[in-house]
């Protein structure tokens, strides 16, 4: 009876969706950040990024997402941050779009006051912002292909895709 698509998204988005990745919000309890940092490093092999940064790679990204909050993008299995933090499932609530950085600069120039040039937004940086009134979380890949990953609230996806198409003439 339930044979869902692998991801709830557009049939043909202009830019590819990052699919089949679990997305969870990690919220550190006050005073437990150091312990959480050590736990992450020890058990998942990644470091907790500083404000406005991301860490990790294609297998697991950790992206700063607010005060004592990070978005984990990737399979973390049954890993639990308890008692240092809480996890909230967001796999179906957020869509992630990967855009080549040059194209992202063009798109953001039409809808965001964020400066994506190298001197202002280097590899690995992350930001919470708005793109033409769409709330988004973005980060720039640490290495490999230079891309901007954009996390958008799922219900905005079609509307955002339509706007981006208008901007890039797609």
């Amino acid at each position: 009876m339930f044979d869902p698509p692998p991801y709830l998204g557009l049939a043909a988005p202009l830019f590819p969706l990052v699919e089949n990745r679990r997305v969870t919000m990690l919220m550190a309890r006050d005073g437990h950040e150091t312990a959480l940092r050590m736990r992450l490093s020890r058990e998942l092999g990644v470091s907790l990024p500083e404000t406005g940064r991301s860490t990790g790679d294609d297998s697991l990204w950790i992206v700063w997402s607010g005060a004592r909050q990070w978005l984990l993008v990737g399979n973390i299995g049954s890993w639990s941050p308890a008692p240092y933090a809480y996890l909230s499932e967001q796999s179906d609530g957020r869509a992630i779009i990967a855009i080549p950085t040059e194209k992202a600069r063009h798109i953001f120039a039409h809808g965001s006051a964020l400066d994506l040039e190298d001197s202002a937004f280097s590899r690995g940086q992350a930001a919470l912002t708005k793109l033409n009134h769409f709330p988004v979380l973005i980060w720039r890949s640490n290495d490999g292909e230079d891309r901007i990953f954009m996390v958008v609230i799922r219900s905005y996806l079609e509307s955002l895709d339509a706007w981006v198409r208008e901007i890039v003439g797609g």
Partner: protein
Amino acid sequence: MSRLAHGGLIDRSRSLSFTFDGRRYQGHPGDTLASALLANDVRLVGRSFKYHRPRGLFTADSSEPNGLVQIGSGNDCDPNAKMTTVELVDGLEAVSQNRWPSLQFDLRAVHDWIAPLISAGFYYKTFMWPASFWEKVYEPLIRKAAGLGALGGAPDRRQYTRHYAHCDVLVVGSGPAGLTAALHAGRAGARTILAEEDFAFGGQLLRRRQVSEDGITAAWLDEVIDELANCENVTLLPRTAIFGAYDGGHFAGLEKPCNGTPYRTWKITAKRTVIATGCQERGIVFGGNDVPGVMLASAIRTYAERFGVKPGDSAVIFTSTDDGWRSAAALARCGVDVAAIVDPRTDVDQRLTQDSKIDAYCGAVIEDVRGGRRGVRDVRIRDSDGVRRQIRCDLVGVSGGWTPNIGLTCHLGTKPVWDSKIQSYVPGQLPNFMAAAGSVAGLCTTMEACRSGAETVNQILDSLGFQRQRVALPASAAITLAQKPVWRVPTNTRKAFVDMQHDVTDADIEQAHREGFRAAEHVKRYTTLGMATDQGRTSNLNGLAILADARNTNVADTGLTSYRPPYVPVPIGALAAENREAAFRPIRLPPSHQWAEDRGAIFVDAGQWKRAQYFPRPGETDWRDTVDREVSTVRNSVGFCDVSTLGKIDIFGPDAGQFLDHLYINNWQKLAVGKARYGLMLREDGFALDDGTTSRLRSDYYIMTTTTAQAGRVFQHMKFAHQCLWPDLDVHFVSVTDQWAQYAVAGPKSRKVLQKLVKMDISNEAFPYMGAVETELCGIPARLYRLSFSGELAYEIAVPARYGRALADALMEAGQEWDICPYGTEALGVMRIEKGHAAGPEIDGQTTAFDLGLGRMMSKKKDYIGRKMAERAALNDPARPTLIGLKSVNPDAIFQAGAHILPCRTTNSAEHDLGYVSSAAYSPGLENYIGLGFLSHASERVGQQVRAVDLVRRRETLVEVCDPHFVDPEGLRLHV
């Protein structure tokens, strides 16, 4: 033709065809509409705002007060375009404005004859009776008789766009100071943006290319522009007026269309900004100074030298500046017969007088210009001995001094300061991200402007850590800059205009003063001086000087009016950019959207969400048929509705219960795991903010639901409460609205349907009312709540959003034998009114818990946001309208939300107002129109008949006051 045989920055090898008022003319690339019209001997370009006086061009730039035209036709036209800034393109259509029936013969020029009756502020004193005529008759008549251009009225289909940009150095203006600053910044490697309002870079250098009197050659200008254009870190923005300066180094600009490009709004964030906007020549107020052919001397020179156009055959230059003499000399070189120079000064620099071969009248003034719509006929001057004489001419160039273009420097509140040396205002103490360079900071020569640009930008480059680079400045000859402000020549014969665009005369300002207006801001508003689209750039200082004279003080002590964005007119479309029609705002789609669309659902906007309003079936021709059917199906069998749009917030932490206690008016810490509870939260002022259910799924984990419309507001409220009021609480929360697809399954058969899908026992005993549990549905994680908004046996089931469509299909299949149907927000609304549940129309920011009948929920054992303020006596007054039910006495008599409730047999006036209808609907089960409302002394009025008076829809309905619970008031159906 008045085109000079050679010279100018126009491409004479190509011709462009354009029309003005339907007549075809020819121009060249590089022309403005203004220069092309002058080249075609068109002198009359517009009619004035109030008196409909014939007007010609006064300037050659964006300060133009007279040459306003409509560009284009139909709905895609641009009214009020200044022809001095319209770049000529092939096929351009321009139409004059504010005249009838034609520009040449304007019947409304009769206003000029009755001018004494319609002087400054006349509409404040006339048309006083009858009062009701003001909006219906007088104002429309005045608006029709006076004004500017008009829009087409239909939607504008043209494209507009927006662009954000960032830079180390923004340079505004491309005169000698701006170009030099940009060149230094570019060579130093700074990200640089050079914005120029004109379509050509160079500023005042553009009108000196032929004579090079300062030694700045055309070659130097071309070299600089070429280098900047090829510099990767420099962005050149021609046709872009920076129209606003905002906090933190943000600037807004408007780029005009060119060769098919759209209007573009620029939002520029600059670490530092060099304001190099130069200065503006100003006129002198004298009789007949608005006759076509009276122009600023610098404008005449620009037309001659930049555009190769001779604006007249015989000119008189009226100047109190040295630059006026140079303009006269330049005109003579271009072949214009300069009949005389009239200078009020008696101490004119001998170098100017000796070099000039033109008749000069020092110590003289022009008292009057005579002419009409065909142009200037002659001028009457009064010399130093008081002797009057007449000089025939068709062109008058005026140079009354120079005013720095300080507008942008004042947008952030910086007060300009008076510079007695140049008798004008210059920028005051600017914010640290802004610096002024060149003649905007004080009148200076071209060479001094270059040096100023270099020095200013080098200090900026030092502060930003860039290495200064050497830039060779061209050699320059010394010139004199003396000027003696002459604000006006008193006249008793003809009108002398201060603000030509708004038809404000010197007499108007004096009249305002006589009537008691002393402050510059008051005089501005009473006379409308400087309030037109040119922002008074050619008139403000003259107006202040005349006011100062009336006040018997000096200009510096008179004060200055405020400068505000926009510096140039900005089309609304350019501000909206791509955000129009479907893209007006972001749209959110719930997980079942496509599923509902496939079933022909009609959608309604709920905030940013598109929600299914109802699901019409074949044969249902009226929305009421569909909604009645959906309601009846739920009441008698089963239906389901997508409620995914409700805000959902995960709340974690050992202090989560305590945090909820602070947010809601009722108690939460003792809520058992596996249970849900209804809650109401207040704003800090004690009024209701939002309501919803919150469920405790684990000991340290709750999930809160909010209304669809208030989800963001509630989340913000929670953030504030946690970060500012109770930061010590160990609580964490995050929105999960989009994570879950959630459906309300309601009706007496809802349990049977759901039991087919879930393994857990959902009988009343095993899963009673207000139960909440994490479970599985066909192997996927799910959440099940025993909640009801309809008043029926009901559940809400949530699955991860990707399964939303599949769950809708599964529900349809499982409920097939009970004729299950999806229902939309209309049926949802009908059923909640039948049940007496408050929703958005009741919790509208103006009601309290007491008003909503929820006063008893307010805990007395704990503190919560809004408690103290909700205890205010006025908010607990029994006379305050409280929630009540209403039903029409005649079952078929409609009444709607918004109607006022009044007693029977009273007049429809505010003193009898008892309350209002907040929600209303037709109840198919009760076969009656019913509603909810707020009524004063509500409980005492149950059973009484009152009137629902709808003044907007002109409807009055007799209704009976009743209990708001129309269906199952005991709540038995919820517990079966």
